[in-house]
Structure formats: C-alpha cells, structure tokens
C-alpha cells in the first residue's frame, strides 16, 4: 500500500460528497429548468460515486446509465417540448418570502429529524454475511429468488411505455 493513499481516498470521497450536495442544491435552487436538469445529472454522478464506495460498482454503472443517460435526457426532451422556465413572481413580495420561509423551515425540520434518527439509531451489525454482494451474487439472485419481480418490472416498463404513448398522443389532431 502506498503511504498517503488513505488521504487520497478520503479526498476523493469528499469530492464525491460535495458533488452530490452541489448537484442537489443546483437542481433545487436554479431558476432556469435546464440548469436544474444539469444539477440532477451532477447529483446522480455523485451518487454513482457513493455507490462505488458502498461496494457496488455495478449499481454505480447503472445509476449513470439510467439516471444520467435516460432520465435526464428524457427530462431535457420534456423541456424542449414545453415552456418550463419559472415564471417571474407576480404575487406580492411578502407572500413570496413567507412561502420561501415555510418551505425552508419544513425541509430543515425534515433534515434535522431524519438525520437525528439515522445518527442515534441503534443499528445492529449482522453476525454473518450470506453472500459477498458481487455481481455474480446479484445475477444469481435475480435469476432464482427474484425472477418473478424481475419479469414484473419488465411488464411495468412495457405498460409505462404504452401508457406514455397513449397519453402523449391523446390531444393531437388527425392530419
């Protein structure tokens, strides 16, 4: 082991955490929707790094593939087909401030409560690990224990595609 590599790993972890936080803030706080979508993509890249640190490179890859590659691109298509920028505030100034304060208060309370629950919880570590959580173990479990949910999720995706087509075509006039 190279001396000092510990600090390098910790620094990389810090960069990944900062990427996730910055992406989430950008996704929530920016007024242009396209920047917000980019924030979501940055946040998902950070989450992929976190999954890598959680011993799951397979899910890190899937996160980038599905979220950055599919979800964000789909939302960009939605942005192109509609007119989504935040409207300039028309209501009165102090009502605007009031709603901002309420939203900030609620989210701060949720953050405080949930993180307090997470930090003070008594989490028992497992005595023995059944598998090592490798890609091989995931594949075996997907094709044996979880084969029925695996098939059902493909059915859900098919129904979602058909439903999206039907809904989006609904109001279009015939040529």
């Amino acid at each position: 082991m190279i001396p000092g590599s510990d600090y390098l790993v910790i620094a990389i972890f810090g960069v990944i955490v900062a990427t996730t936080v910055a992406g989430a803030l950008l996704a929530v706080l920016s007024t242009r929707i396209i920047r917000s979508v980019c924030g979501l993509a940055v946040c998902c890249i950070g989450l992929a790094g976190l999954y890598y640190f959680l011993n799951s490179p397979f899910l890190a890859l899937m996160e980038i593939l599905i979220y950055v590659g599919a979800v964000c691109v789909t939302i960009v298509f939605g942005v192109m087909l509609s007119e989504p920028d935040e409207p300039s505030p028309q209501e009165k100034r102090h009502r605007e401030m009031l709603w901002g304060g309420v939203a900030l208060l609620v989210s701060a309370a949720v953050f405080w409560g949930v993180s307090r629950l997470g930090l003070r919880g008594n989490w028992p570590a497992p005595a023995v690990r059944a598998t090592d959580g490798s890609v091989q173990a995931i594949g075996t479990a997907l094709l044996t224990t979880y084969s029925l949910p695996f098939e059902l999720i493909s059915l859900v995706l098919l129904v979602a595609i058909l439903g999206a087509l039907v809904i989006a075509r609904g109001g279009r006039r015939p040529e």
Partner: protein
Amino acid sequence: MSLHPYDHLGVYLVLAAFLLAAGIYGLVRRRTLIGMLISGELIFSAAALNFMALNRFLAPDPAVGQIFVLFLMGLAAAEVAIALSIIIAVYRNYSSIHSKELSDLQG
C-alpha cells in the same frame, strides 16, 4: 470501526436526509411541473441511497439491497416517462405547465 469517513453509516444517512430535505424544499417551492418532477427524482435518490447504505453495513445478504435499488431505478424511469407524457399533454391543452395556471374552476 475504522476512522475513515466512508466506512461510517451515519455519513450516508445524513447525506440521504439532505437529499430528501432538498427534494421536499423543491416540491414546495417549484412552480412548474418539470421542476417538481426533478425534486421528486431527488427524493427517489435519497431512498435509494438509504437502501444502499443500510444494505452495505447491516444486511445479512448484500445482494438483496442492490437488487431492490435496481428495481427502484426501473420504477423511477417508468415514473419519469409517464409524468413527462402527462406534462406534454397538459402543455398541449393549457399552453402552460405552471402549476398556478392549471385550473379550470374560478376561485
């Protein structure tokens, strides 16, 4: 228990709580449907991160949580597809996706 920050469960749980809080803030504050959809995705990500952290540190079988998060991603993708088609249909009918203008009734 080592001293590395990435070996502690609490770091991930607090980060997931932050993502959840950011998503809730966005859901309350955003005034367009796509902005609310993005905030919903943040909440989905918070749930997935919680699953992954608890799976890594506490689960007897670490493959189960990964499979669950994989299903969660599939459901999130389906949800985005449906929500965007609804948003496009709404935009076609109302010429706007600002949540304040999407009402037919007066008052």
